[in-house]
Structure formats: structure tokens, C-alpha cells
């Protein structure tokens, strides 16, 4: 099949503003958008820039705006995308070049929520045991690959770049509800401000965008509830 890629390109060193480039690519319906992007970069225009690493939907490098929705280029099959596919960088972050955005602010927010085990009790001699239901409690949010699709699909984040964003809350949730972790209180305190969980307006864009199928809005809701029950 023949597909046309309409790619929003921008080189801050040369271009005053973004512009649309069109590339015709011959591909199989079962190819992924990433294959088509590679075909462009390798055989048509080597100046096209995008991130990709594992190409199997687990490293989270190639999240981009595909036909108006955030998705991973390596998980989007051409047969589901139509004959003309628009590809843009994720919204809300500074474009470094073409489809690459500056994710430093994204990882700053991620670090804010202390995304690592915190323990204050005496370290046991063996591993810290956890029952299957205790593990199940936060299973959904362990799936995050930090691709940024949820945060950059969030209108609340577009309007307020200071908002900690769904991805950081998901990663806070992963530890807040982990029975082995002891940093629950400090994480909740970090999220209990205007630009923390309370900036979430339950728009659900994050749920649609997440390539891992995480119920992001639910996770944010659970953090809000945890905050509420802590106070009441």
C-alpha cells in the first residue's frame, strides 16, 4: 500500500516556524508507523529527526501525535491509520527538532514525586514480603514506560506547564500503594497542592493516550481519595 506521511517539521536553527513536509512511502499494511518513518529517514530525507530505541513498545521513546492522538509510532499499524497520516511532535514541550521534544521538564516532575523505594524501618535480613493482593493493588501503575503520551495529551497540562502531570502521579501511585514503601506521607504531601493532583480535571485524555492501557485517571482519583481519607 502507498501511504502519505504529513510530518510537522521544525528546525529551530533554520526555521522561523514549523512547516508540513509530505512523503510518499510504499509499505505493507502490517508495517508500523515507525517503519514508514524509518523508510523516510533512510531513503528519502536523512534530516528528519525522531526518537526511537527498542521499537517494540517498551522503551517509550517514540511517542508522538499521530492523526491527532498521542501514540507510540512502533505500536501504530499503518492499516489502522488511513492513506494520509499526520505526524506531529507531542504538545506542551519545546520542540528540539521535528518530532523530538525536550523532556527535561517531564523528568523533573517525575523526580519530584520521589519515584523510588523509601524505607525508614530496620532493613530486614531477607526480602520484604508482599501478598499477591498487596502486589495487585498497584499493578496497573507499574506498567508506565515514561513515554510522555499521557502528560502531553492533558489539556490541564497544556494550560499550566507547572502541573505535575499524569505520568508523575502514576509513578507516585505506584509507590504510594505499595505495602513495602514507607514514603507514602511525603509523596502525598508533594501531590497535595494546586499543581499536584488537584490540577486534574478528569478529562480522561491520558487514559486514551496511554500506550500501556493504564487507567491513569483512576490512579489520579485514588491518590485524591488517599489525600481525602488522610485528612478526614
Amino acid at each position: 500500500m502507498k501511504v502519505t506521511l504529513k510530518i510537522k517539521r521544525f528546525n529551530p536553527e533554520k526555521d522561523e516556524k514549523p512547516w508540513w513536509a509530505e512523503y510518499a512511502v510504499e509499505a505493507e499494511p502490517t508495517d508500523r508507523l515507525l517503519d514508514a518513518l524509518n523508510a523516510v529517514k533512510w531513503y528519502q530525507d536523512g534530516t528528519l529527526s525522531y526518537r526511537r530505541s527498542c521499537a517494540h513498545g517498551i522503551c517509550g521513546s517514540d511517542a508522538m501525535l499521530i492523526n491527532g492522538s498521542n501514540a507510540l509510532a512502533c505500536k501504530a499499524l499503518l492499516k489502522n491509520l488511513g492513506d494520509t497520516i499526520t505526524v506531529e511532535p507531542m504538545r506542551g514541550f519545546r520542540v528540539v527538532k521535528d518530532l523530538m521534544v525536550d523532556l527535561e521538564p517531564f523528568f523533573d516532575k517525575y523526580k519530584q514525586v520521589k519515584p523510588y523505594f523509601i524505607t525508614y524501618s530496620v532493613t530486614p535480613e531477607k526480602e520484604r514480603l508482599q501478598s499477591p493482593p498487596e502486589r495487585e493493588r498497584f499493578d496497573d501503575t507499574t506498567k508506565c514506560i515514561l513515554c510522555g503520551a499521557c502528560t502531553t495529551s492533558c489539556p490541564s497540562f497544556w494550560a499550566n506547564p507547572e502541573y505535575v502531570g499524569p505520568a508523575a502521579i502514576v509513578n507516585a501511585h505506584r509507590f504510594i500503594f505499595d505495602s513495602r514503601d514507607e514514603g507514602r506521607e511525603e509523596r502525598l504531601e508533594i501531590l497535595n497542592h494546586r499543581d499536584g493532583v488537584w490540577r486534574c480535571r478528569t478529562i480522561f485524555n491520558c487514559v486514551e493516550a496511554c500506550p500501556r492501557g493504564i487507567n491513569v485517571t483512576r490512579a489520579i482519583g485514588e491518590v485524591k481519595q488517599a489525600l481525602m481519607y488522610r485528612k478526614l
Partner: protein
Amino acid sequence: MNGAARARPESGVELYAWLFMRVSGLALLFLALGHLLIMHVIHNVETIDYQFVAHRFMTPFWRTYDLVMLWLALLHGLNGARTMIEDYVGARGWRVFSLASLYILGFIFLALGSLVILTFQPVGTS
């Protein structure tokens, strides 16, 4: 933006605002539906006049009903508008101006409405 490991504890106003929206929303669902039922389904709009309201306000129950609905609906709406202003009015000057206007207007409406409901004296009703 330097946001790494920045803790910014707040008094929890947003938490209570969030909780208020849920509780008042739930209460308003019944209050407003009841209001709609009485004013538009059970009684025809044309039959609702001064006499009707005066008669209704003779019982403390309906005054309380209307007072609770007024406060919940107005505060619920005000908080929604506050949220929108805080989300989308970025310039500090405009934000302060919009919020100040909102609070002043809200206070005036709340005071006027409460005044009417609490001090209304039926005149010339049988």
C-alpha cells in the same frame, strides 16, 4: 523550570474545594431536580406568581430548601469559575482582577439572595 524534588506543602484548600464540589454536586442533583419538578412539572410556570411564592415561604421548610440550594449552587458555580480562571488566565494582573470580580459578585449575590429568603414577609396573602 527547576522542579526537581521540590516539595510545596499547601494548607489543603484545594482538597476541601474538591470535596465540596462532589458533596454539593450530589446534593444539588436532588435539590435542583426537586425544584424543577415542583416549579415546572407539578405546577405550570404560568401559575407561579407572587402569591405562590409567598404561600410557599410561610413554611420554614421551603425557605431552608431554597437557602441551601442557593448557597450550594452559587458556591458550586463560583468554585467552577474560579477553577477555570486559575487554569486559563495566566497573566497575574488579569487573574487577580478576574478572581476579585468573581468573589465580589458572588458575595453580593449570596448576600442578596440570603436576605430575600430570610427576611421575606408576605404582604396581602390569605
